[in-house]
C-alpha cells in the first residue's frame, strides 16, 4: 500500500474498518449466548455493510450507495421491531434468552 499518506484517507481504510466490524459482528453472532446480543451482532454486521456502501458511493461519486444504506436502515428498523417482539414472545413462553436453549426446531 502507499507509504506516504496524502492529505486525506485512502478509501480502503474505510473498507477495512467495515470488514473488521463485519467480522466482529459475525463473531458476536457465533459466540454470544444471549439472544438480544446475537440480534445486536446482526445490527453490527448491517452497519459494517452500510459503511462499505457509503464508501463505494464515494468511490463512484454517486448517491446510490446512500440510498442502499437508507433502505438497509429501514429494513433494520422493521427487523428490529419484529425480532424484538419475537424475543419477547420467546422469553414469555420459555423464560430464557439463551440461544442454545431455544432449539426445539430439530429432529
Amino acid at each position: 500500500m502507499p507509504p506516504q499518506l496524502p492529505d486525506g484517507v485512502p478509501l480502503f481504510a474505510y473498507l477495512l474498518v467495515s470488514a473488521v466490524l463485519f467480522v466482529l459482528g459475525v463473531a458476536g453472532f457465533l459466540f454470544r449466548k444471549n439472544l438480544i446480543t446475537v440480534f445486536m451482532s446482526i445490527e453490527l454486521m448491517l452497519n459494517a455493510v452500510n459503511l462499505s456502501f457509503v464508501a463505494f458511493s464515494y468511490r463512484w461519486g454517486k448517491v446510490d450507495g446512500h440510498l442502499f444504506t437508507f433502505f438497509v436502515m429501514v429494513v433494520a428498523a422493521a427487523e428490529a421491531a419484529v425480532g424484538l417482539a419475537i424475543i419477547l414472545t420467546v422469553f414469555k413462553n420459555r423464560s430464557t434468552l439463551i440461544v442454545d436453549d431455544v432449539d426445539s426446531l430439530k429432529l
Partner: protein
Amino acid sequence: MQHLWLIPFLPFLGFLINGLFGKRLSNPLVSLVAVGASALSFLWALKVLAALAPIGQTHVETYFTWIQSGPIHVPVELAVDRLTAVMLLVVTGIGTLIHIYATAYMAHEDGYYRFFAYLNLFMFFMLTLVLANNYLLLFVGWEGVGLCSYLLIGFYYLKHSASTAGNKAFIVNRVGDFGFSLGIFLIVVHFGTLSFPAVFEKAKAMPVEAGAGWLTAICLLLLAGATGKSAQVPLYVWLPDAMEGPTPVSALIHAATMVTAGVYMVARSAALFVKAPVAMEAVAIVGLLTAVLAATIGITQYDIKKVYAYSTVSQLGYMFLGLGAGAFSAGIWHVVTHAFFKALLFLGAGSVIHACHHEQDMRYMGGLRSKTPITFATLTCAWLAISGVPFTSGWYSKEAILGAVHAHHPWMYWIALVTAGVTAFYVSRSMFMTFWGEYRGHAHPHESPVAMWAPLAVLAVLSIAGGFLFDIPHILEPVFPRGEHGAHDLTLEIIGSAAGLIGIGLAWLFYVASPGLPKRAAEALGGLYTLVYNKYFVDEVYDATIVSPLIGGSRALLWKGLDAGVIDGAVNGAGLLAAAIGGGLRRLQSGNIRSYATWVVAGSAAVVVLLGVMGGAR
C-alpha cells in the same frame, strides 16, 4: 367509428349482471336486464346498419392487438358487411323475441337468473362470431357458443339425460372443432394471416384447384368444423339429444342461430370454397345426405321436439346443399327463413308442451286446435312455410336452393325434391297429431300467456311474409355475385311447390283421413321401419365403433397402465427419493442456531476466498 363492440358487449353486460348478482335480483329484474340487453343490442345493430347503409364495402373497426407473434398479427377487430348484417339482425332480432318468450316459459323454473345469464352469454359469443373479422376471433365465438349450448342443454343438470346430452353435444362438437382448428392452422401456414380480407384477397389470386390441394384440405377441415356445429352427417347426432334443454334454448340455439354458424362460416369462406370444387362437392353431398337421413328419421319420431330437431338437421342439410351447389346467397336466405319458421315451430312446440304440462309425446296430444287457438294459428304459418307452400318464406329460399341444385346436379335435385316432400309430410304429421283428432292426454291444456304468444305472432308474420319482404340474394349481391343460379325457372318452382303440397296431402291421408294407415304402413315396411324408427342405429354404431373402444382403451391403458403405473410410480418415486435425501440431510439440522451460522460463515468465507483467488471484483 360506429362502436360495433357495443353490439356484443351489451349482452355480455347483461350476463355479468345476471351472473354475478342474479341470485339477489328478483325475477322481473333479471328478465328486464336480459331482455333489455339483447333488445338494446338489436337496436344498436339497427342504428349501426342504418348509419352504414347501404353497406357497399366492409366496415372494419380495429380495437387492439390481441396476438403479435412473429409475422402473425391477430388484432381484435370487428367488421360489418351485408352478410354480417343479415346474420346480426337474425341473431339479435330472433334472440330478443325468444328472450321475451322465455321470460314467460321459464317463469316457474328455478335457476331463472342462471338461464338468462347463459342466454345473454350465448348472444355475446354468437355476435362475436358473426362480427369477427378474422378466423381466430370467429373461433372464439364458435367455441363460446359451443360452451353456452353445453351449459343450456344441461340446464336441468339434475336430470341425468340432460347432463349426458350436454356432454354428448360438447364432445361431438370437439371433434368438429378439432377439424376447424386444424383448418385455421393450415390457413396460418398457407396464408400467413387470419384476417378475412387478407386471406380472401390471396385466395382470389389463386387458380382453381382441379384435384386436391392446400385449399381443398383447408376447406374440408372447415367443413368438418361446420358439420360439428351445424349437425351434419356424420356429427349430427348431438342435436336431437340437445332437445333435453329448455325449449327456448332449442329454438334460439339449436334451430335459429348457433347451428347456422357452420353455414355462416362456410358462406363467409366462400372465397376459399369456390377455389376448391372438390370441397364444394363434399359440402353438397354432406348436405344432401343429412337432409335425406334426418327427414326420413323425422317421419317416425313421436317426441314433438325430436321431430323438429330432425327437421332442423335436414333443413341445415338443405342449406349446405345450397352452399355446395354454389348458391351461397340462397343458403343464407334459407338460414334466415328457417330461423323464422323453425324458431316459430319450436316456440309453438314449447307453447304446446307448456299447455300439456310438459308432455312431449305427440301420441298424448291432439285436438289442441280449439284449446290453444293462437298457438295453432301461428304454428300453421310455420307449417306452411316449412312445407314450402307457395309464397311463404320457406318456399322462396327452398326454391332458390332447388334451382341452384338443379343447375348443379340434376340427380341431387330430384333427391332434394323428394326430401322436400318428406319434410312437408312429417311436419304436417306432427301438426295433425297435435292439433287434429281428439285430445289423448290427461292434462288440461290451456292457452299460453301473452308474453309467449306475442313472439309467436311476430314470427308467424315473418315466416309467412319473410320471403318476399327480404330478398336476401339481392341484398347479398355485393358479397356473393348472383350467378346463373339465381334465374327463376317456373317449371322447377311448380314441381317444388307440388312436392310440398303432395307431402301435406299424404300426411292428411295418413293421420286424419284414415288413422289406421300408419300402423299398417309400418308393418308393411317392417325392417326398414324399425331401422328408421331407431334412427338407423347411428348412435349404437358410434357407441360400438368409437365410444366403447375409447373408454375401454382408456380404462385399460391410460388409467391402469399409464396413470397408475408410470405417473403415480414417478410421483411416489420422487417422494421416496426426497425422503431419502432428507433423511441424510436432517443430520445437519441440529436445531442449534450457532451451527447453522457456522455453515453460513463457512459459505461466505468460501465465496470471498474464491473472489480473491479469481482476482478481486473485476
